[in-house]
Every structure is written in C-alpha cells, then in structure tokens.
C-alpha cells in the first residue's frame, strides 16, 4: 500500500516536471544572434571584441537611394537625442549585402557621413551569408536588365537591437520614425 502511494506520488511529481518543461520550452523565444566577423575599412571586425551595452544592426546597401539613407538618418537623429551618459553605450552597425559592387571602404566611408561612430561592414559572400543566417535575416540579389543599375536587391528591413553578446533582444520593423527608434533604444538600455 505504502509502495503504491509512493509510486503515485512520484508519478505526479514527474508529470508536473514534464508539464513545466513543455510550457517553458513553448514560451521561451529562440535565441537569435551572437558574435560575428566581417570587414571594416579593410580590417577584420569582430563583434565580441568591442561590444556596447546596446548594438543596433541593420542590413542594406549604399546604392539604396531611399529606405537605407532614411533609416540611417533616423538612427543618427535618435542617437543625437540620447542623454550624454547613454550615447557611448549605444552603437549602430550597418552591413552591406552588396558584396559584388561595394568595397569595404565605400561602406565604411558612407555610414560615417551620417555619424562618425557608425560602423559600416562588408565582407566576403560567405561572411555576409553567415551573418544573415545568424540573425535570421534575408537578402536576394536579382538581375534587373530594365534598370540602369542592372540588378536589384531585396533585403530584410528591420533594425535589430543586440545585447553585449550579440543576441537579439528586440527589433523594429518598418515604417519607423526617429522617435520610435529613440523610444526603443531607451526601453532596451
């Protein structure tokens, strides 16, 4: 009798543990992100070498005339409105997915015109593809003979917010204003 009670008791505890684990797994978000390596102005740049408390990441290309410069302008405006003590805790990283036509110097010089603290990265196709997979982003380069440029690029349009480990802690899809970016930064600092 005593053995039966003990068996039922442990069975109940075991069931509760399994149930708790299933609920926990279902509710937890998958971990996206991590450290990565690319090229900055001709040198290797590794995220984990100099992470900030909050790191904003956006992919695009410097020949993009509309959405990308608008996003960079908004991020610059948002960072400019941060309190002085917080400015050095935040960094913006722009990664170009146009490896065939944009040099690392182009990308680095391009973003620094918006803000001298911005990091502009490029790299080999392999490096860029690894970053894209790591952060669950997408891009596609297609021939476009109708356009003077000869190709078009479709890419994810989300600003990712990363912690010091490079893990995505939040994100901001389009459309977004500089005020919304500022609010998101403050929420995550």
């Amino acid at each position, binding site marked *: 009798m005593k053995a039966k009670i003990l068996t039922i008791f442990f069975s109940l505890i075991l069931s509760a543990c399994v149930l708790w684990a299933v609920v926990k797994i279902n509710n937890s978000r998958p971990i996206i992100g991590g450290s990565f390596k690319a090229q900055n102005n001709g040198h290797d740049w590794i995220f984990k070498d100099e992470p900030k408390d909050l790191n904003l990441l956006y992919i*695009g290309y*410097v*020949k*993009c*005339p*509309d*959405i990308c*410069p*608008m996003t960079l*302008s908004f991020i610059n405006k948002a960072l400019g409105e941060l309190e002085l003590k917080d400015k050095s805790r935040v960094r913006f990283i722009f990664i170009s997915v146009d490896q065939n036509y*944009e040099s690392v*110097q*182009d*990308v680095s*010089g*391009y973003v620094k*015109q*918006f803000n001298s603290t911005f990091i502009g990265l490029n790299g080999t196709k392999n490096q860029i593809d690894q970053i894209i997979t790591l952060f669950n982003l*997408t891009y596609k380069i297609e021939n*476009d003979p*109708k*356009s*003077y*440029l000869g190709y*078009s*690029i*479709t*890419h*994810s*349009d*989300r600003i990712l917010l990363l912690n010091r480990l490079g893990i995505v802690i939040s994100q901001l*899809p*389009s*459309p977004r204003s500089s005020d919304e970016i500022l609010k998101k930064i403050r929420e995550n600092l």
Partner: protein
Amino acid sequence: MKYLFAVLSFFILVASLANSSFGEQKIVLKQVSVDPLEISEARIFIPLKGSSATAAYAKLKNNSDQDITLTLVNVESFSASEIHESLVRDGKMSMKKVDKIIIAAHKSFEFSPGGHHIMLFDATQNILANQKLKVQFKVNGKAQSFDFNALSRF
C-alpha cells in the same frame, strides 16, 4: 458767368456719357493662367561619398480637368534617372522601376521617402547645395522641365 457754367456742364455731361458708352459698363476679365502640372518642394539629395546613387522627391498637383500621364526623360548632371517605388512587404524592402505615373484630374501625387522616388545614377559633376538642376518630364507626351533644388542630407 452763367453762360460759361452751362457750356462747361454740357462738355462734362458729353464726356461722361462717352466714357460710359452711354451707360453700358465694360467689364474686362483678366485671365490668370494656371499650369496644368504644379510642382513644389522639388529636391535632389546630393550623392553621398561611397554611393553612386541618390534620390529626388517632390509634390505634384494636377490642376487640369484631365488625367496627367508623367514619364521621366532625364535629370541634369546625372548619367541616368528612373522612377522607382520602394516596397516593404513581409518585413522585406525592395524597389521596382515604374515607367509612368498617372495623376488623376485635380488630384495630387508625391515622390516621397519610402514610396515613389526618382532614382539618380552617376553624377557627372560635383553638385553643390542649393544648386538648381533641371528635371525633364513628358507631361501627356509633351516635354516640360522643372527646377529641383540640390540639398545635403545633413
């Protein structure tokens, strides 16, 4: 004296009648010409270092009773120019070339950031802030140029 007054009154009366064409008033209507296509806030962002492309934006208003079909011909100081539309779908950004814009009668249209824009490629000269650049369209098949103001993004 009475005689002089009567003669003067007579001449004044004749002159007034002649002026008023015997009481019929002449109404002259001034015609104010309104351009069928009105453009405002026309601006071109000066290309940034590292990028060979930039964009132009403007507000357009069709003041006429007919729809306007607009095609882009060229932009001064750029090797090529195209009308593009930025699209954000399922969290992805893309651009597509647009051959023409149709503005309905008495309606407005805007080339604006994040939407339709004029994409410009390969500047042929150094462009300075506040420089006026001619943008030539075909408005219902007829060439028409408009001044766009060059602006820095910063």
